[in-house]
């Protein structure tokens, strides 16, 4: 049984990390990061089987790929707090000569990152490759992937989605951050994507919803169910219904904070809504 109090404390601390990272350099992407905080916390601390030391090949462990690389602040915070690198390094987010680049990269050798992302639409393909490598290696572990909903407008995703089903890539769980928002507005206004569940199903995926995508227990229970579905010939898609900007009242339910940092006053307000739990970096 998960220690939800501990996970909840971590969620609040990660929110603070996200806000402080983007505020310091007055750039970066808080909205999507906050919306996926509970998911990341659950994934890294409750769901994935992870080895102690990071290796690129990740033999004998579950792997995670972030396709929507712009939500690097949440990724970096959760990686640091899971011990991949010192939390103090969050201070260097987006600074010159940092390993914490604006979008995740392998180029600077940051532990926890296995592929560059930022240019959207490429993560599912990479994940399929890693899943196929696991199969070739007779490694029973899983590949977890996160992508944005707006991101699914990129055609490459659908090439990958077709491939994964057509080739029984059933050690793969792709989670979609279904926040209904992207840069220019709501996904419905920018480019309506219709019934995503039906689309994935029509392509041959096993699809499930997590309706409360910002509730730790729903995420843990839902993702465990998703895990049980693996190994049955179909790739798994989880539609994670999230609220962009979750946990900071003035950032919620809008695309306004997709790629904008809070000013001093806004930061103070946002942090007051999320008091220190584990300690700031």
């Amino acid at each position, binding site marked *: 049984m998960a220690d939800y109090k501990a996970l909840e404390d971590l969620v609040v601390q990660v929110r603070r990390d996200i806000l402080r990272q983007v505020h310091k350099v007055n750039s970066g992407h808080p909205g999507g990061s906050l919306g996926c905080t509970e998911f990341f916390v659950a994934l890294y601390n409750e769901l994935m089987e992870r080895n102690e030391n990071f290796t690129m090949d990740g033999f004998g462990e579950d792997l995670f790929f972030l396709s929507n690389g712009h939500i690097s602040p949440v990724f970096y915070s959760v990686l640091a707090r899971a011990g991949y690198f010192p939390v103090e390094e969050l201070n260097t987010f987006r600074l010159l000569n940092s390993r914490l680049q604006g979008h995740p*990269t392998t*180029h600077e050798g940051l532990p926890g990152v296995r592929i560059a992302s930022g240019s959207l*639409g490429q993560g599912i393909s990479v994940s399929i490759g890693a899943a196929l490598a696991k199969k070739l290696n007779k490694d029973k572990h899983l590949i977890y992937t996160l992508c944005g909903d707006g991101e699914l407008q990129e055609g490459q995703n659908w090439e990958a989605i077709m491939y994964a089903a057509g080739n029984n890539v059933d050690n793969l769980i792709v989670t979609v951050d279904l926040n209904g928002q992207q*840069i220019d507005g709501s996904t419905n206004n920018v480019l309506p994507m219709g019934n995503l569940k039906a689309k994935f199903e029509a392509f041959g995926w096993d699809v499930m919803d997590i309706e409360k995508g910002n509730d730790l227990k729903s995420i843990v229970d839902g993702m465990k169910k998703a895990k049980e579905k693996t190994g049955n010939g179909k790739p798994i898609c989880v539609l994670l219904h999230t609220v962009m900007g979750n946990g900071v009242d003035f950032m919620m339910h809008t695309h306004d904070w997709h790629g904008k940092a809070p000013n001093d006053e806004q930061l103070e307000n946002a942090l007051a809504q999320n008091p220190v739990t584990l300690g700031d970096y």
Partner: protein
Amino acid sequence: MKKYTDTGKKDTRSGFGDGLTELGKKNKDVVALCADLTGSLKMDEFKENNPERFFQIGIAEANMIGIAAGLTIGGKIPFTGTFANFSTGRVYDQIRQSVAYSGKNVKICASHAGLTLGEDGATHQILEDIGLMKMLPGMTVINTCDYNQTKAATIAIADYEGPVYLRFGRPKVANFTSADQNFQIGKAVQLQEGTDVTIIATGHLVWEALQAAETLNENGITADVINIHTIKPLDDQAILKSVKKTGCVVTAEEHNFLGGLGESVARLLSTQYPAPQEFIATQDTFGESGTPEQLMDKYGLNASAIVSAVEKVIARK
């Protein structure tokens, strides 16, 4: 020396947006397409004024290029807008087949080119786009230097029949060319007259070249400063004329030294008038996060780097 004054820092992408707004009023055939970056590309006003001529494609750049190519069949003049990386590398084959090879009148307008987009880092900082685009047969490649010139170029390319790549940037930079300039595709602009060295610059490096020329002048070195806003077709005559006078050249661009303006100049000179050349450009590397100034400094793309390169090239004469 001619004096150039910065009339107030402005971003080149706003020059594009304002040029497009003007085109919207005077040319009914101009249509615009964007891939979920309307605000970043400053296309909001065109969109508001001409909702029926604005196409929000979603995050689907390959589809955007294809749709743009199709819109030309029926006489439309499509302007596509997204970041430089997603305007070129992302969609290279779509441009190659549906636009360049098919000879379609599409204007590919690309913001956030080079290092100066800053903190987003290397995934977004393309330093290879000039090379990619200039290698396409029939493609015109333009890299403007300031707000006024970007606005003028945006308007000018609508009257030119054929595919164009228009490259500009994100940050606010000096605005020093004239507001009523007559932008001529393929025509170099002589900014300073000198006899010791030719400095050929494009994009954000043009202002840096002017600053460098002032420093050099104080040290008794006079420079021809040429703004090459059109990298293809290159103004061969202007370059040859200058280098025949000065005997050496420094090229300056916010781009990899492989495939950029410098290589185009080197090709010209090696076949017509061999002369020592130094390259101000990135050295076959990806970019990284940082502020625009920090990055231009770290990668040697500023006035002081140009001054050093001039001293070096003059010594090689």
